């Protein structure tokens, strides 16, 4: 299909400290006991996209990710892992690998996307409109714990994490404006020409940029080259392309652009063209236009470019793992309502207990739970809506609710863990009470302590 896929896997994201560390870069963060990157890769594999470029920030992280991929996907995917320096941003990462891109269109996927929206849908929309960029929008996830959310959690829901202001044309196929909420202080600035051409614009704040883009390669490369200060795809490149869609400064079809003095004229004529192009996309391009545009390169109408949006339907699951809250949400959803993503088959009790896991007497594991292989649980434990990793040793009388416990964790007797994330190799001694905490890898929680809403991590040596 002439698409090349770039997975921007990221590195050690600051927002996810203390969950991520040198040993566990973000792509390998386990979601329902699988690295988060595997969700993207498997979705791509499902779409028959087997040649991937995975870009990782940092050499170490790249090595680890590469090692994991080669182990897990040998013979299934053809993956090249590229390491880029940290903090180059998404645009920088693409710039670094730009010379590897050859296909006509590039599909850029964020490695932290947990979604069942087929990437093909975005690609198809992109192709269909012959767009320069197509982005996938999905409705903003409702974060915070589900039904059982406490009052404190409710407050969190209210606080908008990151919302986008997105302007769409009436058919909801073309992107007319995009800005992330953080940048919008008071006013929106929308070019008049776009408004005039479109006539009507829907502005929505309930959509989220899912970080799945389809770009025209030539355009992407050119933009990256011409604008060396662009740092992020979402914040720089995409708004730039959207802003300039009526007075395109990028070359299309590989033909060099006309000199600048012709620019004014192009704009006005571009408007004319956009009226027929954008406004009524239902309009049939008159066949002579179809024909001629193919034959004489770039007629005036082509001085515009199209920015499309694909809006994932609400029935699809689509969340990015870009915050700690999102991490616990995703863990909950993947073993809960979106359990088709996990790739596991659920037992009759709607949970997954690895056969090698050992449960003590009177221990109950509720629905929407997951228990990794080789984990031992003592007597009279209760687990609800939680994920427990591999080879954990859990004492007796332990309560785990709404939490994520990663691999090789030791829990002493009588612990109570609610709404928390416990990373690998953590040791929690007897009678500890944790509520809404994040415990970094390798930390030791001393016996009898109580924590609420804290983030505990080992000091970096």
């Amino acid at each position, binding site marked *: 299909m002439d698409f090349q896929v770039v997975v921007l896997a990221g590195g050690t994201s600051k927002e996810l400290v203390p969950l991520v560390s040198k040993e566990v870069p973000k792509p390998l963060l386990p979601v329902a006991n699988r690295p988060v990157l595997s969700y993207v890769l498997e979705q791509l594999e499902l779409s028959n996209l087997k040649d991937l470029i995975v870009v990782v920030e940092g050499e170490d992280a790249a090595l680890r990710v590469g090692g994991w991929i080669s182990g897990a996907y040998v013979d299934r995917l053809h993956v090249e892992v590229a390491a880029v320096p940290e903090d180059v941003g998404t645009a920088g990462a693409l710039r670094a690998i730009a010379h590897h891109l050859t296909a006509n269109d590039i599909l850029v996927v964020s490695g932290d996307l947990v979604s069942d929206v087929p*990437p093909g849908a975005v690609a198809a929309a992109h192709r269909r409109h*012959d767009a320069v960029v197509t982005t996938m929008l999905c409705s903003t996830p409702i974060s915070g714990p589900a039904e059982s959310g406490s009052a404190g959690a409710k407050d969190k829901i209210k606080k908008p994490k990151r919302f986008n202001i997105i302007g769409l044309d009436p058919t909801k196929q073309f992107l007319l404006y995009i800005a992330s909420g953080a940048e919008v202080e008071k006013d929106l600035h929308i070019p008049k020409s776009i408004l005039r051409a479109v006539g009507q614009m829907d502005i929505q704040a309930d959509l989220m940029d899912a970080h799945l883009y389809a770009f025209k390669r030539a355009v992407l490369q050119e933009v990256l080259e011409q604008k060396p200060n662009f740092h992020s795809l979402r914040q720089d490149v995409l708004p730039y392309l959207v802003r300039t869609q009526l007075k395109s400064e990028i070359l299309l079809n590989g033909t060099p652009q006309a000199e600048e003095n012709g620019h004014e004229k192009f704009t006005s004529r571009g408007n004319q063209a956009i009226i027929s192009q954008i406004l009524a996309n*239902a309009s*049939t391009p008159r066949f002579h236009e179809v024909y001629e545009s193919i034959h004489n390169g770039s007629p005036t109408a082509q001085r515009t470019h199209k920015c499309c949006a694909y809006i994932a339907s609400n029935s699809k699951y689509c969340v990015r793992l870009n915050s700690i809250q999102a991490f616990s949400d995703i863990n909950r959803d993947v073993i809960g309502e979106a359990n088709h993503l996990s790739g596991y088959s659920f037992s009759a009790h709607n949970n997954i207990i690895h056969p090698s896991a050992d449960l003590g007497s009177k221990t109950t594991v509720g629905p929407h739970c997951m228990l990794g292989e080789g984990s031992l649980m003592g007597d009279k434990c209760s687990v609800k809506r939680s994920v427990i990793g591999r080879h954990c040793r859990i004492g007796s009388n332990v309560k785990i609710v709404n939490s994520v416990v990663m691999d090789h964790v030791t829990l002493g007797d009588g612990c109570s863990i609610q709404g928390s994330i416990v990373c690998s190799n953590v040791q929690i001694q007897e009678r500890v009470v944790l509520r809404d905490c994040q415990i970094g890898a390798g930390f030791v929680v001393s016996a009898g302590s109580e924590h609420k809403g804290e983030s505990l991590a080992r000091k970096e040596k």
Partner: protein
Amino acid sequence: MDPRRPPRTVPDPKVRHVGFFAPGADAPPPPDRSNSAPPDPLSSSPPAAAHLTPPGTSISPVMIPPPRHSAAPLSPRRRDSFIVGSYSGKRFLDVGSPTASTASATDDWALPTSADSAWVGDTVGAGASSLPPVGSAAMIAKGLASSVPATAGLTAVSNVHRSAGVSGKPSGAASKVQGDKPKQSKPLKEKTTKAERRALQEAQRAAKAAAKGVGGKASVHMSEVVLASDVESVEVPKAHFQRNDIAAVNEKKVIDRQLEKDRKKDVPQPRMQYDDKSRVEKAKKRAVLKQTEARNRVELFRHLPQYERGTLLPDLQSRFFQLDPVHPAISKVGFQYLSGDISGSNARCIAMLQAIREAIIDYSVPPGKALVRDLTSKIGSYVSFLIECRPLSISMGNAIRYLKNRIAKLPLTLSESEAKATVVADIDRFIHDKIILADKMIVKHAVTKIRDGDVLLTYGSSSVVEMILLHAHELGKQFRVVVVDSRPKLEGQLLLRKLVGKGLSCTYTHINAISYIMHEVSRVFLGASSVLSNGTVYSRVGTACVAMVAHTFHVPVMVCCETYKFHERVQLDSICSNELGDPDVICKVRGRDEINFLDGWTNGNNLQLLNLIYDATPSDYVSMIITDYGMVPPTSVPVIVREYRKEQLWI
């Protein structure tokens, strides 16, 4: 046997000619049946004995198994006539010229041989074939074959007994068919001819009934008559002859299967009838797209495909990357068809040709395959993908036929790159000659019909009409345009925008005001999706209404249509072949969400929505068809079709 049968058998010239096939059927029928058969009063046919053909002198070289009985030599004259009948093909038969039919019938009588059981099977198979004309041709062929061997039996024919004896060898296939009706019903005394004919006819019917075949239905349902080209008709009988040879040797089953296969190959597939469940199931398995059929379809249009619009595009999109064999350019065009981004006959055709052109440029012959074959099949797969996205228009069908033809005619000596360049050039030429240039010619012709002070009416948005109007305006003619539009597509607004933008003075109205506005109109210019050989204009729905009203008001109606859109098909109504659009759009009004009276009602069983895309305008209402070959009356369409075809084939 069948209560229905007797009445049908009652002589009717056409029926009779059908009966012509009877010989095949006759041969096999088991004696029992003949006994049971009620006496039939007929005997129009000459005595069979006379007809008996000598086995040795078999009519066709292909023919067959040595005759069992020695037969009296067939008179040459007779034989000839017979041959003529069979070769002339279905058309001849269809026409049912009495002489031909009788002659053939008599000949047939002579035939019955036991060996024929196989033949019977054939006939049955042919009967099942969906295209009646072709089927009949095939049958004729068979009849001919069978006639050769049998002789003695024939003579006896007049007697029931004899015929029974002949038929004595019941074959499985034959017996089935006959079991239902064949000989028995036949009158003994009749010169067997009639009886046999009848038997055959009945066998045919039985076969039809038995065959789930869409074809049968098609023939019944449809008023459409497909006239196969002469070439085809000739070919079919030949193919059957060969088949017959083989068949004679083999068992019936084998034969049947073979026939099936051959039939598939030789006979053009009838259009899919979507009310035939089994066919639909099969087609679905093949389909790239997952098509969910709409639930509430209008009874009369069940045979047309209709899917839930909503599901098609998302499903296809989500499997975008799995569409491996489809070239990106093709898939893009497919999406555009599906989503309605491209509509309009010319635009769709050009888009498709451009996409195929791109695909050909990127194409390379896989090792061990011949370019001609592989490329043809490749294009076939592309086309079937496009059909799944949206049924092809007639013009696109013509373009594809042209293309395949050109590919098939590629000299084998050409290298791959040369061959590709040739094909690409052919495509370009087609677009240029048949569409672009044709439009220019049409504009040139049509402009002469526009005079100062005219009020021109057009309907919908036809690209060529638009060009005509703009060109006339450029020439400085003073005229006014009435653009008539209709829901749900409101394509007229697009046209209107362009016309107004160029400074033409326009009136815009909807089709419900047509009778009002027609008073002031002096000419009507219409576009067309296709023009059929009986002069019927197949065009966007509503065109017929406009033309009819114009006719009533004595306003000349000119249809502008490029000749590549002509088709030799004959169609009498817009039911048998049409396209169904998304039914939802007719109950929703764009931009007016408050009009939602039908929301939710469509889920009930007592409301069916019908959104037809095309209609057929009878030639009576068309004053003139403006083509690139000039302005012709609708009656001249067949001439152009014939000439054009020739040109297309032998460019």
